[in-house]
């Protein structure tokens, strides 16, 4: 009986691995090519700390926030709390709107889909509303509310930080 279970399990595992190899080709099409050596660090103190707390509802999980600039945009790396630890997301923001987004790291389990392009694509073009919230309602991953919220919160914080620092010609 036990050997029958083992064979079935190994067969299932083989099929799953094969399927995942086929499926892994289309991930993370957003392009973030900037050399991270040019990243600028903002200490999370004073006004920045207040913006973080207002946006997230808790203390920012790091002492600094990183960003770098391109010719027409700024790219923010934001850390937020997920269900199973820190979710790190990256947002390219230009003219006050999100142009590109990707999830750099996440340990979410039921919320694995927050890395999917189908979920992340909803954030493209999103900007701040007059009430300082996201101007578009983003559908979360059902059953993974906390994981989805982690990316929502990160998007809101990135937009607020970017809005507080208008791009200069020298940037």
């Amino acid at each position, binding site marked *: 009986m036990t050997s029958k*279970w083992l064979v079935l*399990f190994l067969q299932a595992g083989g099929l*799953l691995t094969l399927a*995942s190899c086929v*499926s892994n080709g289309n991930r993370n099409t957003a392009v973030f090519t900037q050399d991270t050596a040019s990243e600028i660090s903002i200490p999370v103190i004073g006004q920045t700390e207040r913006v973080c707390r207002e946006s997230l*509802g808790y203390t920012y999980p790091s002492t600094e926030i990183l960003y770098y600039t391109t010719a027409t945009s700024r790219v923010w790396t934001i850390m937020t709390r997920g269900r199973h630890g820190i979710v790190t997301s990256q947002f390219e923001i230009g003219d006050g709107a999100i142009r590109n987004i990707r999830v750099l790291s996440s340990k979410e389990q039921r919320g694995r*889909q927050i890395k999917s392009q*189908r979920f992340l694509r909803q954030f493209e073009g999103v900007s701040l509303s007059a009430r300082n919230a996201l101007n578009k309602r983003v*559908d979360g991953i*059902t059953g993974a509310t906390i994981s989805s919220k982690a990316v929502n919160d990160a998007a809101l914080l990135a937009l607020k930080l970017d809005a507080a620092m208008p791009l200069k010609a020298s940037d």
Partner: protein
Amino acid sequence: MRGTRVATIVIGFVLVALAHGAGAQTTEGRLSQLEQEIADMKKQHSDGRLLDNVHFGGYGELHYNNPSGSGDASDTESIDFHRFVLFIGYDFSDRIRFNSELELEHSLSGNGEPGEVELEQAYIDFTLNDSHTARGGLLLLPIGILNETHEPTTFYGVERNAVEKNIIPTTWWEAGAGAHGQLLGDISYAAYIHSGLMTSTNSSYAVRSGRQKVAKAQASDLAGTLAVNWQIPGVTVGGSLQYQSDITQGADSDAGEALLREVHVDVQKGSVALLALYAHWTLDGDGPKAYGADEQYGWYIEPSFRPIETVGFFARYSEWSNSAGHSNSNAEKTQYDAGLNWWPHRQVVLKADYQWQDNEDGKDQSGFNLGLGYDF
């Protein structure tokens, strides 16, 4: 003059010796101080790393229930801190992580007390790659909507829905091993081989009574669960299959294999949402058949409306039976629920609902429930 020179040299030697001695003491002192500082730094560094790898969380819910009984059903008027839960996790490395859930039910546990302390999760995840993770330990089974995610802020109604409670039966955990992950982008899976249920005639083979909770559990007959979900933003459609090789763990020759089939839908688009679930057990053997427990099933549907972020309204229709094998057993239960959730903070919820029962046996409990819940 010569004596003065000698005296000067001697005094010089003494002063140099004293100075050397004093210097050596200072160096030793400095070294000792540095060693202590380094030890302190190491300790701080070590403590910091330890805390960096530890994750805490938890949730809790306080209930006030006030349904009145009709038929032979009893009145209920009680207040209960139903669940106080702490999560503790530890990351051994980026790829090997521990998670646990410790629960105190009904506030007070012990001999003759209403509650109990339960270890509901204690497993280790081994990340194989971005898509697949192996898991071993004491784990929640990936069946239905509530069993794995049941923080009070995430569902409507003071009490968990009766179908998942009595038929799945949530909260259901077993010891086992397997894997979970993602296939073809939008499809997730979980597959485990694990310990099984142990029902008996004493409980008319009701599946909920068979949970052994991994407490010196009989494990002569294993079980297996496979769950698959298709998930896109705002929509989850999924199902699970579970096979029990002997649902009495060999204790009852009149019972044997059992199979659970379950499907569910979870849709949240904008301010409206819909949950629906159907679950069905078949139990082999003349024993369960004699009680009508060879068929146990349930389903519910729950539309909800959340016009603003902080307030949501819901209605639910539930129907279930743990002895549906007898067509005239009067065992089918029906319950209607309606109410609201108010989230003053995203991690805090206040709930109010009203329940109506229309059970075949005429024993109904109808009335209101109030709840307070949190998670962090």
